[in-house]
């Protein structure tokens, strides 16, 4: 599975929305379930899935899904 597909799977699980489709310009403001607590579960799940660690401020600083995806593609261990 591509990074984008794996990210989409994590997003769908955390947001409990099987129809959620990730696009690069998607932000938290576009997804009602994407609140600050979902953000924490999301970032943690991405860290475990891809074997990476975000810097402290990155836990909340990605502007949109595209930026997050590009970061993961560059830093994923697996």
């Amino acid at each position, binding site marked *: 599975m591509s990074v984008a597909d794996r990210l989409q799977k*994590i997003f769908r*699980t*955390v947001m*409990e929305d*099987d129809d959620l489709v990730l696009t690069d310009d998607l932000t938290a403001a576009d997804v009602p379930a994407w609140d*600050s*607590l979902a953000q*924490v*579960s999301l970032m*943690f*799940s991405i860290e*475990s*899935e891809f074997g990476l660690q*975000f810097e*402290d401020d990155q*836990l*909340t600083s990605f502007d949109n899904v595209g930026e997050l995806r590009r970061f993961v593609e560059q830093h994923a261990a697996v």
Partner: protein
Amino acid sequence: MNTTNARIQELLSDVAGQAVPTGGACAELARAYQRSGVPAQALRWAYTVCDVSERLVDWLAAASVVRACLPRTSGLPRQVRVAVLGSYTTVQFTALLPLAAARAGVAVEVYESGYGQYRQEILDPASGLYAFDPDVVILATHAGVLDLPVAAADPEAEVERELSRWTSLWDTIGQRCGARVVQHTFAVPPEEPLGHLAARTSGSRSAMTHALNARLGAAAGPHVALVDCERLAAAVGKRTWFDARYWLRSKQAVSLACVPLLARHTAAVVASGLGRSRKCLVLDLDNTLWGGVLGEEGLGGIQLGHGAVGEAYTAFQEYVLALKNRGVLLAVASKNDPEDAREVFRRHPDMRLTLDDIAVFSAGWDDKATQLRRIAATLGIGLDSLVFVDDNPAEREAIRQLVPEVDVLPLPRDPAGYPRALADYPLFEPAALTAEDAARTELYRARARAAQLRQDSVSLEAFLASLDMVASVVALDEPALARTAALIGKTNQFNLTGRRRSGTEVAALKDDPGHVVLCVRLRDRFADHGLVGVLIGAVEADGDGNRRMRIDTWLLSCRVIGRTLEHEMLRLLADAAAARGCRRLVGSYVPTARNALVADLYPRLGFEPDGDPGARSWTLDVEKTPPGPGYITIDKPAKDST
């Protein structure tokens, strides 16, 4: 639908080839079955996630399946109301607990206190906790809330004082609603200022925390159960248990890597208290209790007691024997010649288990489902009391399908992992070791209770008074403005209007004579909570030619909810309003998804409904501002600061 069914077949053939299926595959199967409208299978795979996975994302998926599918099946044997009172962010724990509880045979309805509100919820008789009327109260607490010094001159007194803080909370819960308490013990942080000297210093913080855990265990009566977080944290590693980044970012005192584990163990303890623990371990023989096949290799050929493989089976037998010695029934279900099988128990020198340890010995050529039914009937217990252990995945799957009441332990391929697989299995959790043990504990408890006799009976009022709280108005320099903007941006619960003023707006308003911006910090005996309250008022014309002040924004950080700070803030605002010639304060409540907590704030503070009550607008004569309850001293800023 067809693609879903094809995917199910694909996943089923994947997991059939795995000794222990992966959590990801099980979670996906659960969701796929849910989509196909087969709730029983969806639940089965969701429960398997609990057994085989520690991954948050698998658990979140399985928990969502349970939420959707449990109501559509015939339900579970027990239903209980569980309140989670946390000293840290328990949102994920609370979301996963119903999954782990359902896995243990208990349907739970959960109530979650606001972040860090455990003490206020327990002490306030009118709290949401008591309105919920719980059967079980889980105190999900962490060492960060303990008031223990780095090094104590009188460690025993420190531990006793801390102990009575917790036991008095247990007693209050017991008296007010009779709920059973499940207390998480305190994971001792690995950072120790005294270094290795701490190990030989009873006054070190880590030694006192260990002592407190032991004292909590000794003080827990029959209505209090412990979940030993210190042991769980040590098992996974303290550096895994606590991740500072997630603590700092969202006050997770238990890393999300460990919340599934914590939910599983907490649910097991809850289920055990309801008599839902399993009673009997049913053991296969070949490649389960010893290596090799007895019918082929004979008594001398099986692997037991010697070499890496033989010793692994011995270690497993020793763990099984320890379970038996503390009350778990043992049975054998084997496809073997019965006499040959018994002969191994009698004659093999390295067998740790003897025939006397086995309550029912079933060996023969009947299929295992039949043997399990016979074992349950012989012992006079239900099939739902049995746990089946077999190295053969096909036998395990047959039992899951034919006798679903029986619990099946997923055993790894390598026998070196057997003892751990059994040790990690949570549903043998004993409620008490023996009846006498329980009776003795009860006696101990009654005595302790009489001795204590409410000398430290703590009321909410006494607790608040003991905090020595001091509030002060903060001068709005740049850091304070940044903190104010952040607080406005993220506060959801105590937030009257949900209006999100930006930092730039606040900076402009503070210099505008038509506005009042009140930012308040609070400290108490234990901690300085920093800038935690924001109240913005706007001067406007009243109908009768006078002025009034409209409350534009009012919020409190959730870490200080229940501290009565809102009363003091209101008085500060009333003073500021009067100074600007306002006769009345006007406030409105704008409901959002999370702010029901403050729906009745204005009437609680003495405001009158403004026009029809449905309008959610309230008014207060500035001169009638009620005096606060008096738990907080106001530290007035120096005159020149404005």
